[in-house]
């Protein structure tokens, strides 16, 4: 990723061009489920950022949920089993 951003910021002032930011935002946009399905170039910066925040939060929730489930699953199997270790590993 850093390569993409060819930061020319070496010169004291980090010259982060707008282009870089635009690129990053579009990349981000592609990762977002909602914004990608429609039309990729439709979203404004603020919308992309907003959606990203929302998406990250939802992913967090999902991770928590999955962790819970995995924990439950873990409890159903004997702890020493390989599966257990797998499950444990999955649970962050």
């Amino acid at each position: 990723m850093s390569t993409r951003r060819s930061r020319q910021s070496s010169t004291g002032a980090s010259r982060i061009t707008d282009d870089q930011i635009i690129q990053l935002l579009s990349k981000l946009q592609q990762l977002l489920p909602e914004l990608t399905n429609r039309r990729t170039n439709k979203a404004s910066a603020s919308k992309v950022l907003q959606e990203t925040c929302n998406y990250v939060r939802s992913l967090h929730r999902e991770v928590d949920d999955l962790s819970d489930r995995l924990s439950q699953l873990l409890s159903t199997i004997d702890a020493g089993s390989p599966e257990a270790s797998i499950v444990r590993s999955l649970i962050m």
Partner: protein
Amino acid sequence: MNCRWMPEFQRMNHCVPDFEVDEDYLLPASSSLRRHKKSAMGDEDVMELLWQNGQVVMQSQNQRSAGNKKSETMPSAASREIRSGAIEEEPTPCNLFMQEDEMVSWLHYPGDDNSLDIYLHNNDIMYPALPSSAPVTTAPSSLPPPPPLVTVPSSRPPIPPFKPVEEEPSQPKFANFLHFSRPNKGNLAGSAPSSSNKLSRATTQLTVVESNNRSAGEALQSRASRVTDSATFVSGANVGCRGSMSSFGAAGTSSAGREPETCDLSASSSPITGGSGASASVEPSSHKPPPATDNRKRKGRDIDDTECYSEDAEFEYHEAKKQSRGSVSTKRSRAAEVHNLSERRRRDRINEKMKALQELIPRCNKSDKASMLDEAIEYLKSLQMQVQMMSMGYNMVPMIFPQRYMPTMAPMGIGMGMEHVGMTRPMVQFPTVLPASAMPNPVHLGPRFQMSQLPVMGPARTQPANPTDPIMNSFPLQNPNQLPRLPFQDPYQQYINIPQTQLQQSQNQTGMSGVTSKASGGKDVGYHQPTG
């Protein structure tokens, strides 16, 4: 008289001419105030706002003629400024300040709309258009090189002095304004154009007031009041500069309507200087008023002024401006202001969201946008990957270890498995179910994975960490080493690595393209809809 205003720099008529000494940046406002006062008191001479040493110095016109050295210096300075500035203005200062809409209100006063217009137009400075043009000319000459700002027409007399009489009560107010604006005052010379814009606007108001003064005593009074209002307005606007300007304007008007320039200058300068910090003790004390006597001019203002009050001021000014004569420049400036405002708001919104996003990202200590966005992208990917992994694992484990789960799940297993959309319990016995499945199992991976995995896993899998369970090998233990590592010290990395390795392995065995694609592609895989 109002010597209390006497700014360090100047005392025009009656005070010691420290103008020159002081400095270049005398607080024009203060001086002008003084002047106004003086004029009000009794100097009938028109107090002109002259720029002296870059500061607006109010000088009574009479004095100029008298050859007061003080006044001369001051006026000359001021005049210089004026002249240097776009002096196109004509004798009627009123027109000068046209640019701001705010002036409109002022303009309505009997008087000189025209002059104001021109006045405004010419400079950004808020040179109050002095109705009396005559004295001004003389004064300017005497003044030392006035700040460029004062474009007030040389001919124009200095800002019409406020009638001290009327103003008296308001004077204190002006002083306050001056305080506000003071800081900018110094910038007349050439501070940020934006600020000057503001100032000019303010000036405009003042100018208008000034011009009004000319018309009549009452006019003055009304203007004065207006000025006060505007001044108040200005201060409300949070722009120091403006405040001062208005005050000046008011003061100017009161005095004689003749010192608009001076007044305005000071006013404008104050705002300019003070714009940034209103700290100004604006008042006449512009002791160290920035040299910009040209405060009047927008440019004079510091950029921060613009910043500080651009937001508020813009609003107010914006409205005021609307009413301006409609000079082209005014419209343009208006449009520009509107645009700036909206730009600013948009940027603020975006910044807010960036901050919110930054908070969501763990261990994000980047301060610049680009790197922050980079991190956000990576984090998002890793999160997605994690969710995929977890859900896949959640679904797979029961399947992988059918032995373990079967007993319990058997009853529900097959049927349910089929029905389940796969999320939580793949309870399908893969051997039987797999093939067909519908495997609602969520991700297209599931079924595929299972199917392919089962048969092949054991033998094909290479990492058979646990030979006991072929299945285990295949899936979970594809990277037996890795799995344990899952508890990610580096969530990002781990997530990214694991799936890939696993995927690859799977692929080796069965070409689980699905899995691979999952890893690479992302989001669609999740077992459950990502909350979405």
